[in-house]
Every structure is written in structure tokens, then in C-alpha cells.
């Protein structure tokens, strides 16, 4: 396969050029370390963020219709006589509020403080419509808008139901539970995704929610478990509620975490310069002419170039990931899927960078020019794509790297797979378009002429 032959030839060349490969690897690392030093320690965890809440929770839930199956068991054990709604208000909401949404706002968010200095995390302002909230956020009057959906109470009842059913099952007592009686819902955190305040505030809000849910679930399971004669078989003492607490720890979210996704994309954009430089060398040394006289097709040439740089880019990426990890970046999601996603998004970004390299190298005649012109194009472009800080350039949204950057942020900061997939798809489409343009231009200018 000539494509492979050419790819291997290129990889050999790249790895034998010591200066080149050292730069190739050292540059992104240097960058990352620099950023880690500059931003790694994050701002002081004393900022109180202005957040908006739109509470649409109607307070209703399945227990309003039918008492949960386990309630008699609970009443008997505790000597109480709760109906479903009474249990909800007295136990789950501790008699403090009418709805779970209200409870989350008044008892959780309002009381949240930074552990080390007791500063409040949030200043909360209630809004009465989504439009009003979004307007304030976009004006920068608040870091984000939390929308608590109408079925939030219902969902909380579901969480409790689920926890209890799980606990009962752990005691091998069979219960009937159909999952469709539970409401599934999502709290919305609305804001400007690239915005730094939003990133912090949203991660703290979600941290609070996770922590609350973990505690709620643990507490409920403990309460129910202890009503069984043989006591809680798998859970002991009062530690139950604390098992999941670490999930939403917010104060580890640093500016470095926030910069890292953009840095990866930026480093991968540099591939465009390397591609340009190697192709320009091939033009200048006339080895491209030599290739043209062989039975190599332009498809082989383009394919070989693409494979070569995908390989080298991947190599770079792996080193970057190790370094990022070693520098102690925090990921929102789990290890495996997060790295898988970073890898896929990076491949798309590398493909886009190779394509850009093809385009530029159609117009430069030697490696020095390639370095200069390549840098002059790539660096401003990396700013446009928001690699360093959010840019408000609508046209830049069309660039594959912008979308890859957003996807990378979604993965690393929010573990929002859905949004990440959407951005990745956009990035892929844009990358393929740029690739086709690059191949056509390069062929016209360098292979056919």
C-alpha cells in the first residue's frame, strides 16, 4: 500500500529530525506547564457568585396519588402514621419548605459556604421568567441561571423511592417497583459556556446538587435499613450519608482546568505549521517532483500525509494527556470515557489542522516561509477559536477548532456528553470540509501544475 509506505517514510523523517521532534513535543508541554504555573492555583476560593434561580417546581409527585409501598413498613417501625405527602413534607423536606425546589434553594444553595473561610458561595436572586434570567445573564449581571423544572419534587420522590427499593432489595425482600413511576428530570444551568464565572459557579451548583442527592439517598437508605430486625447489613453507623460527598467538591476547579481543553486544541493546531513545513521542504528539495514521477497517485500522497500527521498528532496528544494528568487537572467525568472523548475530539482537531496545513503549503515555497506564514495564520486563528479565552466572533463558530474546543470543554469541565457529541459532530463536518478544500487546493497547486 503506497499510502502506508508514504506515511511510514514521513514518520521516520519526523522522528529522525531531532530538533523538529523535540520542538514538536516540547512546545505543547512547555505551554501546559506554563499555564499550570500561571493559573494552576486558581483564584482564591472566596468569590461569591451572583446566581439566578427560576423555580418552577409545582411540589407534586407520585406520593400525592398513592402512598409508596414501603411506607407502612416505615410507619410501623417508627411508630408514625404518615401519608405519602406528609412523609414528603415532614421527613424529606424536614418541615421547612413546601417543595423540593424551594428546599434546594433555601436550605442547600443559600447556605452553601466555602469550607475554609465560611464565605457564602452564592448570592441568590429569584427570577420569574426564563427570559428575564437569560437577559440578566447575558448582560453579565449574574454568573448563571438555575432552572428548577416543574417535576423536580416528583423526581426527588423518585430518588427516594429508588433508594429505598435498593435498600430493601439489599435485604432480599422482594418488592414491586416499576421504573416508570419515577420522574426523570434535569436542573438546567444556563449561562455562557465559555465564561469563566459560569464555569466556576455551575460546577459549584452541580456540586451542591450531587452532594445533596448523595446525602439524601444515604440518609434514606440508612433510615429504612435500620428498621429491619437484622439492621443494615451492608451499611454501618452514621457514615452512610457521607459516602458520596466528595462528588461535587468544587474548590478544586482551577483556572488551569478551565484552560486545559483550549490548550490541547491549540497544541494540535500547531500541526498545521508542521504539515506546511514538511510539505514545503518536499517542494523546495524537489522530492515532490521525484514522487510525482513514480506511480504514486495524488490520493496516495494526501493519504500518506494525513496518516503521518494523525500518527504524530496522536503521539503528541498522548504525551499531553499524561502531562495534563500529572499536572493535576480535574475532570468532571470518569477517567475512561473522558479520555476516550478527548482522544476522539483531538483526532478531529488534528484532521482539521492537517487540512489547514495543506492549504497553506499550496502557497509557500520553502520551510522558512512555512514557519513564518504558518505561525502568522495559526496563532491568530487559535485566538479566534477561543483556545485561550472566550471570543465573541460568530464566524469563528464555523471553524472546526472552535467546535472541538467547545466539545473538549464540555467533556473535561462538565462531562456533558450530549453537548460534547453535538460539538464534535459540527467539528467533524467542518474538518471534513476544510480537508476537502485542502486536498483540492494542494493538488491543483502542487501536484497537477
Amino acid at each position, binding site marked *: 500500500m*503506497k499510502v502506508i*509506505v*508514504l506515511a511510514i*517514510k514521513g514518520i*521516520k*523523517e519526523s522522528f*529522525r*529530525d531531532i530538533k523538529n521532534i523535540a520542538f514538536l513535543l516540547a512546545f505543547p508541554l512547555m505551554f501546559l506547564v506554563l499555564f499550570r504555573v500561571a493559573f494552576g492555583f486558581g483564584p482564591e476560593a472566596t468569590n461569591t457568585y451572583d446566581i439566578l434561580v427560576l423555580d418552577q417546581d409545582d411540589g407534586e409527585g407520585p406520593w400525592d396519588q398513592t402512598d409508596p409501598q414501603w411506607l407502612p413498613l416505615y410507619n410501623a417501625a417508627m411508630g408514625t402514621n404518615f401519608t405519602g405527602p406528609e412523609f414528603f413534607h415532614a421527613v424529606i423536606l424536614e418541615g421547612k419548605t413546601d417543595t423540593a425546589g424551594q428546599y434546594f434553594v433555601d436550605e442547600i444553595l443559600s447556605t452553601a459556604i466555602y469550607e475554609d473561610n465560611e464565605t457564602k458561595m452564592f448570592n441568590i436572586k429569584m427570577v420569574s421568567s426564563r427570559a428575564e434570567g437569560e437577559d440578566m445573564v447575558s448582560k453579565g449581571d449574574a454568573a448563571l441561571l438555575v432552572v428548577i423544572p416543574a417535576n423536580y419534587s416528583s423526581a426527588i420522590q423518585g430518588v427516594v423511592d429508588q433508594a429505598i427499593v435498593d435498600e430493601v432489595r439489599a435485604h432480599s425482600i422482594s418488592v414491586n417497583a416499576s421504573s416508570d413511576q419515577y420522574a426523570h428530570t434535569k436542573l438546567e444551568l444556563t449561562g455562557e459556556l465559555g465564561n469563566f464565572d459560569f464555569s466556576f459557579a455551575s460546577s459549584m451548583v452541580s456540586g451542591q446538587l450531587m452532594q445533596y442527592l448523595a446525602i439524601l439517598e444515604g440518609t434514606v437508605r440508612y433510615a429504612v435499613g435500620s428498621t429491619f430486625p437484622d439492621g443494615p447489613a451492608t451499611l454501618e453507623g452514621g457514615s452512610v450519608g457521607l459516602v458520596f460527598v466528595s462528588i461535587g467538591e468544587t474548590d478544586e476547579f482551577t483556572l488551569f482546568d478551565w484552560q486545559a481543553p483550549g490548550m490541547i486544541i491549540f497544541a494540535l493546531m500547531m500541526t498545521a505549521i508542521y504539515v506546511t513545513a514538511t510539505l514545503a521542504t518536499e517542494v523546495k*528539495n*524537489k*522530492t515532490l*517532483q*521525484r*514522487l*510525482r*514521477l*513514480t*506511480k*504514486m*497517485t*495524488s490520493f*496516495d500522497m494526501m493519504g500518506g500525509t494525513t496518516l503521518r500527521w494523525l500518527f504524530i498528532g496522536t503521539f503528541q496528544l498522548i504525551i499531553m494527556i499524561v502531562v495534563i494528568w500529572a499536572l493535576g487537572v480535574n475532570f468532571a467525568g470518569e477517567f475512561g470515557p473522558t479520555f476516550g472523548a478527548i482522544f476522539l475530539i483531538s483526532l478531529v482537531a488534528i484532521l482539521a489542522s492537517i487540512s489547514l496545513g495543506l492549504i497553506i503549503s499550496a502557497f509557500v515555497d520553502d520551510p522558512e516561509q512555512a514557519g513564518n506564514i504558518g505561525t502568522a495564520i495559526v496563532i491568530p486563528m487559535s485566538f479566534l477559536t477561543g483556545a485561550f479565552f472566550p471570543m465573541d466572533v460568530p464566524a469563528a463558530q464555523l471553524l472546526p477548532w472552535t467546535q472541538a474546543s467547545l466539545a473538549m470543554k464540555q467533556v473535561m469541565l462538565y462531562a456533558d456528553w450530549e453537548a460534547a457529541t453535538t460539538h464534535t459532530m459540527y467539528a467533524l463536518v467542518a474538518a471534513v470540509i476544510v480537508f476537502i478544500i485542502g486536498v483540492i487546493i494542494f493538488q491543483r497547486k502542487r*501536484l*497537477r*501544475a
Partner: protein
Amino acid sequence: MVDHVIETEHLKMIYPGGLEAVKDLSIKVRRGEVFGFLGPNGAGKTTALNMMVGLLKPTKGRTLIDGEEVKPWSRTVKEKIGIVPQETILWENLTCTENLMLLANLYEVPKEEGQARTARLLEELQLADKADARAKALSGGMKRRLNLAMGLVNEPDVILLDEPSPGLDPQTRRVLWEYIADLPKKGHTLILTTHDMDEADYLSDRVAIIDNGELLVLDEPRKLKASVGEGDVLELAFDEGADLQKAAEDFTSLGYIISANVTAGRVVIRTKDAMSRLPEVFEFVKEHDSEIRDVRYRGNTLEDVFIDLTGRALRDGD
């Protein structure tokens, strides 16, 4: 009937900027011959070769290889042509073997055959001990030999050699010449460019002399040399300040001198049986209050042909 491998029809190249590098080149190269292009620097040799293999699009005219027109990327070229460019074109960071194997692979030479050819070429061109050295670590002459090997690895029917020997020491040059002279025996047709008359003379079956993009003559070296005139050549160098032009004119008046003219700072006279005429020549110069500093005696060369045609020496262009 003569079998022609390559035929060019009215090839013309005008570079952007207006320079007419090749004017109207129509030649026919016979199968199995060594065809030499002889001409000074800038004559248009490289330009002509590049058009013949489709690397350069002619402004006008076309080239046929085995009757098929050459187009960029044309299969005919890829299958039948090997080119040894004037500049050494190598992948500096690949070893000799890798350079050759890369081309072998891209020419679809089967792997084992490619390895065998690579080893053989390196052996024949005395590069075997450098097989695993990177191209950038080779000396200039070694690079040149590797460059030659690169054009042969696909064992093409027609090999175009664009000035194969500059920069080589005399011994290596001999080795290279002998190697090149052997190629037609293996069934290859050779097209060779050079500005070195000895090289053209030694290697070529037929020589096309070109200057300023124009084909001046095309024939066998022997016939070309004979065409310049009978006799031998004496090249005379005078002390500085001597009026060479006048000296040449004076010589012409002598009965035994066939021709006399000035080229490259020397008076070149042509006479039969030159050796025995030497004393007379010295005497004649002395009579004219002049002194000869240096004399060279030789038979006719292609250079004389060139001088005869253009009034200039080949090396003027150097």
C-alpha cells in the same frame, strides 16, 4: 525502419517573465542509443528534459513516448521513464537503502525484487558500505551516485540523465561513465545532458548541440568533429596585452593554416600535420614581435564544433 522511443514535436518553453528557454525542439531518440544534449549553462537542456517527462508543461509542442503523448501524471512516463535530475534530489533523513526502497515501492517493484535491485545498485555504484547511512551524511560525490541509483531502481526503458558527473573526482567520474556506457547493453535508452564535450563525446551515440534554446546540429560525434574541418588544432596563449585578433588575422594569411580565430583568450589555429608546423608557427610569431607563452595541441573536439557554430567556447558560459 528506425525504432524511436521518444519524439519531441516543436517543443517550446517560454517561462513566466518572457524568457524563451527552448525555442523549437524536434528530435527523435532511437531505441537503445545514448542521446546527448550538449550545450553551455542556460542553453535549455534541463528545461527540455523536464518537458519531455511532463514535469513542465510546454508552451507549445508535445512529446511522444512510444507514440503516446506525455501528460502530467501520465502512466507512460511513470512506467517507462527514469530521471536522474541535475540537482541531487534525496530524502536527507532516510538512509541510502530507504531512499531506494521508497522509490521501488512507489514504482510498484515487488518487494524482494526491489531489495535485490537496491543491493545491486548500491554495490555497483560503490555505496554498499553506506547502505545504512542517511543521505545527508554522504559526500557530494556519493550523493550524486545515489541520485543516479534513484533513477535506475525502477529499471526504466528510458533514462534521462541531467548532467550526471559534475563534482566527481576523475576516478569516480570514470567509474560512472563506464557504468552509464554499459546501460544500453541492458536494454535502456539514455538521454544525457552535459556541457562537457568529453563526456558527450565519450558517452553519446548521437549528440544534439543546443545553445540559447535552439538545436544547432544533431549527429554522431565522429561526424560532427569531421564536419568542422580537417587537420589538428593548436591553441596558442600569448602574453598579456597582445593583440589576439590581429594575430589571428595574420595567421590566416599563411598558406598552411586552414583557419584561425580567437576563443577564450587563445588563438586557435587549425592546420594539417600541426606538430611539424610548430617551429614555423613560433618563427612567425617572433617575426611579429610577439611571444607564445603556452601551446596546446589536440585533435578536433566537440568544442570545436560548438565554436564553429556559435563563435564562442562552451566554457564561456561557466
